[in-house]
């Protein structure tokens, strides 16, 4: 049975105790903004993020309330989420993602369990239809080889990827897009009637390999490339003739290239451009740097 996707703030608030939810509603109303995140810490005040502001709510979160939030997020089945909790997040069946952390139990340097969870960050995904149209025009270009979108965490990379998917998988483009949605964040908020194959929960490298081998995509979209194996998979896809649109954490292109695997990937010619992203008034500003096979050419700004 497929559960209906729901991304409203109210849906996110439904996981919180009534007392905390009420305080969050009041704080959000005071700032007239869209709540991006709700941060709960045991025995600390609750914070919400509206735009770039962190706003303290009047309520705190007791250990019992933290436990009840966790149980609610897990559908009262914590054991089903042990693998993702080890990775630091919980996804609800309806596609909402919450980051979690506590005390890690390790064995041989590997996390085998996380106990005493003391922080939960509920991220509320939003849609900004049309916000990435400038990038879609670049991707639809015949000479497009690939795109890397970078920004610091929380600036909207995933939202931009979601909007790219929504636009390019619909008419008039109707591209066959394979989305490697490792953390269930991209496809959940998209509707039907799209030419998207969602590889939900797949490790990134494995997902890209599967997509190229079995789904004959025209474009692969993957969020948060973060290791050499992922970068190698992007290069493989490029080698197989499938361009990739990926995202990575960095505040500048120079910072991005400080990671060796990323530098190698960029130098491999797998990307036509690198896009620095920053949010502005519910839209995005893109700093598009053209990347030739022989290196960086020039930067152009696309603003709303």
């Amino acid at each position, binding site marked *: 049975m497929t559960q209906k996707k729901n991304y409203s703030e109210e849906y996110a608030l439904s996981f919180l105790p009534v007392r905390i939810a009420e305080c969050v509603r009041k704080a959000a109303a005071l700032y007239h903004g869209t709540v991006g995140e709700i941060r709960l810490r045991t025995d600390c005040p609750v914070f919400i993020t509206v735009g770039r502001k962190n706003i303290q709510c009047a309520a705190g979160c007791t250990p019992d309330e933290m*436990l009840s939030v966790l*149980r609610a997020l*897990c*559908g*009262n*089945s*914590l*054991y*089903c989420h*042990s693998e993702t909790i080890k990775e630091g997040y919980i996804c609800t*069946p309806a596609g909402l993602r919450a980051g979690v952390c506590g005390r890690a139990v390790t064995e041989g340097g590997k996390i085998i*369990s996380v106990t005493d969870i003391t922080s939960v960050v509920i991220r509320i995904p939003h849609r900004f239809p049309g916000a990435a149209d400038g990038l879609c025009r670049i991707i639809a270009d015949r000479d497009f080889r690939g795109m890397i979108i970078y920004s610091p965490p929380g600036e909207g990379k995933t939202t931009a990827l979601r909007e790219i998917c929504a636009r390019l998988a619909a008419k008039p483009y109707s591209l066959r897009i394979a989305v490697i949605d490792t953390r269930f964040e991209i496809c959940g908020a998209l509707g039907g009637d799209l030419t998207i194959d969602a590889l939900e929960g797949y490790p990134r490298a494995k997902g890209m390999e599967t997509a190229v081998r079995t789904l004959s995509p025209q474009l692969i979209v993957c969020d948060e490339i973060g290791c050499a194996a992922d970068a190698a998979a992007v290069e493989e896809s490029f080698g197989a003739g499938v361009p990739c649109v990926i995202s990575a954490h960095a505040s500048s292109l120079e910072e991005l290239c400080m990671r060796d695997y990323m530098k190698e990937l960029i130098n491999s010619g797998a990307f036509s451009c690198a896009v620095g992203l920053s949010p502005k008034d519910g839209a995005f500003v893109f700093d598009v740097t053209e990347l030739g096979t022989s290196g960086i050419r020039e930067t152009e700004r696309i603003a709303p």
Partner: protein
Amino acid sequence: MIKIAGGVILILCAVLWGRERCAALRKRCEITAALGAFVRYTGERIGSFRDPLDVIFAAYSDKCLEECGFLPVLRESGALAAAKTLSASLTEKDARTFISFADRLGGGYEESQLALCTYTASSLEQSAAGQEQAMGEKLKLYRLLPVLAAASAVILLI
């Protein structure tokens, strides 16, 4: 005539009361055994498929637990609410064990949940077996004692 009719009614009431007690005893034993099987099934589904509880609850069917209202409440309001509806139908110890199980179910990782299911299922199954063993004696008692008491009362009255 009235005395005889009264006596017959008294004996009839005693027979019915005895039967009702016997049925309640059998029902308690049945429910305990059915709960043991339910807990074991839950553990197996968690261990084999890591199914979420709502999926496990939706898939489980048992005539006895359906009739006593446990499964409908379980699917609607969760394990703890369902366990509380059964506390009158179980022995005090079994009710305590099962409520504690329901409270902790879903709140831990796989290993702890499996251990919880194994412990609770064993405890309920042992209790059901004990009740079954003791039932023969108790049934005889519930059938005969009220009738004898009623008959003695009737003789004394007449």
